[in-house]
């Protein structure tokens, strides 16, 4: 039923989706850049953001990109156990990243520095939170894809084309990494020094 052309079109379409998502993030980045100084008498980035903590978060996410790459290579080599192992590692690292981010958010909100405090914090929560939502969606996707692979003894029998889906998931995950590098640089590194 599925052939190589389908695979090509699906991956091409997925790249287009990623490009459109780039634009979504670009809008949020631009808004953050404009509103960064609008603290409305509240705390600014330097006072609020804990760079070493976020560096740890960043390292967790970067490592998960590596394990996602391992899953892709394993799928090409037809090593099912490795695919599941690498996906599980990616999931755990991704969930850890998300947990750390929620911890950061909870701390800010508890201290009265939630998104309603100032335009700067609105832009901060929207940008970082949108990335977090994407990570959460990626985690859900990993669970569903694993269920699909488990439901059949080999890749070829699974619903749809698992290799295509796995490649798309990999692209998505690396894309989130790239966006996070942007967030880490613009929001955290620049914010803490400027």
């Amino acid at each position, binding site marked *: *039923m599925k052939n190589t*052309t389908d695979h*090509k*079109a*699906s991956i*091409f*379409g997925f790249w*287009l*989706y990623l*490009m*459109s*998502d*780039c*634009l*979504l993030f*670009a*809008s*949020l980045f*631009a*808004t953050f850049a*404009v*509103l960064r100084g*609008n*603290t*409305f008498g509240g705390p600014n980035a330097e006072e609020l953001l804990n760079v070493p903590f976020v560096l740890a978060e960043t390292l967790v996410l970067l490592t998960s990109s590596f394990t996602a790459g391992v899953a892709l290579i394993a799928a090409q080599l037809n090593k099912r156990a490795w695919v599941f192992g690498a996906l599980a590692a990616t999931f755990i690292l991704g969930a850890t990243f998300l947990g750390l981010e929620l911890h950061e958010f909870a701390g800010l909100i508890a201290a009265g520095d939630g*998104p*309603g*405090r*100032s*335009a*700067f914090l*609105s*832009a901060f*929560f*929207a940008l970082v939170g949108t990335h977090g939502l994407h990570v959460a969606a990626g985690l859900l996707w990993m669970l*569903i894809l694993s269920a*699909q692979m488990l*439901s059949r003894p080999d890749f070829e029998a699974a*619903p*749809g084309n698992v290799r295509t*889906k796995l490649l798309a998931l990999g692209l998505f995950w690396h894309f989130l990494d790239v966006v996070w590098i942007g967030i880490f640089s613009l929001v955290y590194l620049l914010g803490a020094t400027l």
Partner: protein
Amino acid sequence: MFGTLTLSAFAQGPIVLGAQLFIVLGGLCIAGLVTYLGRWRWLWDEWLTSLDAKKIGVMYMIVGVVMFVRGGIDALMMRLQQALSVGASQGYLTPEHFQQVFTGHGTIMIFFVAMPVVFGLLNLVVPPQIGARDLAFPFLNALSFWLFAGGAALVMLSLVVGQFATTGWLAYPPLSELQYSPGVGVDYWMWALQISGAGSLIAGINFVTTILTKRAPGMTLMRMPIFVWTALGSMLLVIFAFPVLTATLAMLGLDRYLGFHFFTTGGGGNMMMYVNLIWTWGHPEVYILALPFFGVFSEVVPVFSQKRLFGYTSMVVATMTIVFFSFVVWLHHFFTMGAGADVNAFFGIMTMVIAIPTGVKIFNWLFTMFRGRIIFALPMLWFLGFVALFTLGGIAGVLMAIPPADFELHNSLFLVAHFHTMIVSGVLFGLFAAISYWFPKVFGFKLEERWGVRAFWLWVVGFILAFGPLYLLGFLGATRRLDHYPAGLGWQPLFIIAGVGAVLIALGVGCQGAQIVASIRRRVQLRDATGDPWGGRTLEWALPSPLPEHTFGHIPQVESRDAWWAMKKEGHAPGVLGVPGTDRIIRVPANTPLPLYMAGALFLACFALVWHIWWLWPLSLSGFLGCIIARSFAHETERPVTL
């Protein structure tokens, strides 16, 4: 249980009551008719659950036409109010109601008329023109349609339950913020745009993938019909522009629902950020709508001039230049913001520059006609109406591209007249040309001419009467969205002429209705037996009319531009591509109701958010996610068709 929704949401006074009854009774009448004819099963199997681009295209068109009638009634209401409400008379609409009417008119005409007819047309024409049986992602195509329909339903629902926005069609903050618009109107507007916008983005990705990966062998990029090029340009713009709209509306939503401070007057918000972002989407949107119809004219003019298109390459370059430049002119929508002389000068010059590729196109069409044997059939008439009005409207646009002139004309009726000239002649006349041109390909019989010619003249004369006075009124200082003015200004006669023009246009629409009815009655005489009624040049005319379920019996090898014209030269008979090749079994996408369910779930979620029904939206959102997961587990998504 029902959040902020109470019975008072239904009580809106006599005029709205009429509209409410009209919508409810109209819906009941249609349901009753389908039941009476026993056609529910047919409707479900053949249309509502179909993933076939040919059917989805027709459904887009039908919903677009219904919404066009709604938006047109809004326009007539505004014309009547402005003709009456002078001096001591306050007209028949309250200011609040008048604001809903102009907001509804703008929102509906752009998002729920112009957008669906673009997508409908692309669905009907792009696959057969590039030699493809369907789009790259048929399931997503149906989802796009149903998301759009969900958004349209939400706008219509706002008329029955509660109010629509009173903010104008782009809902500038701080007016659209909770502080100044505490009602449900802005929420209806925002969520309707969010779900239909998501559908548009998915459709954009779908069409670009289709055009770039599913062309027939031998159809290189520079052999594509110009319509496909303009479709590609338009859909690239969708991919790059619509995420900005999504993000902007989401930020407005966060302000309204969760107390964020993006665009508020307090908390350090910056409302000009919204205006910049929304026009970063909004200006490309103009070209998203216009480009495909430039493509329509590029198909129509050569066929009815019986000549090859003049300047194919320059047409391609002009299209792609417009795609690029449409992203660097957005600030001309608000020169008066106070960005400073340098910034305004840059955007003013860019705005003038973008007129150049558009001018190239107009000259290409005119040179195509030059020394051609012109057939004045309906599509050609609409082209001639377009080229006259569009050029005038374009010149008015270049005038306003000069920032000092814009300071005088900003937000005046001159501007309203300008963009209506562009959109009515560019999009609507283009659409009418496209409908009369491709109608036989879709339905198997031609539209009859007489009612069409009547409609054409009523539209052109009505348009000049309706919008000519607005140019003058703009110069006299009349602002847009005006619900009352003093008698001493002497504007009333001009507003009355404009109202007469609007009535003529309404009569033109009536003639178009009569044209459809007359054509259906005479469908046997008007039957298109060959599949090539106009002497067409592109691949769709090498297929039988109406298109068979699998579209192509066999996929051709394309050797040149105007592929069907070249095949005719080699002696191929009409309908040749409908003949089966070696494949006797072709797989087409199987029907599924999931796109309908998914859009229904999102529709409910949005309704719940509008009325703060906090238990309903997580529930419907889970239903939506459940549908996605269910689809990802589907094994068999196609069914065979035996030729």
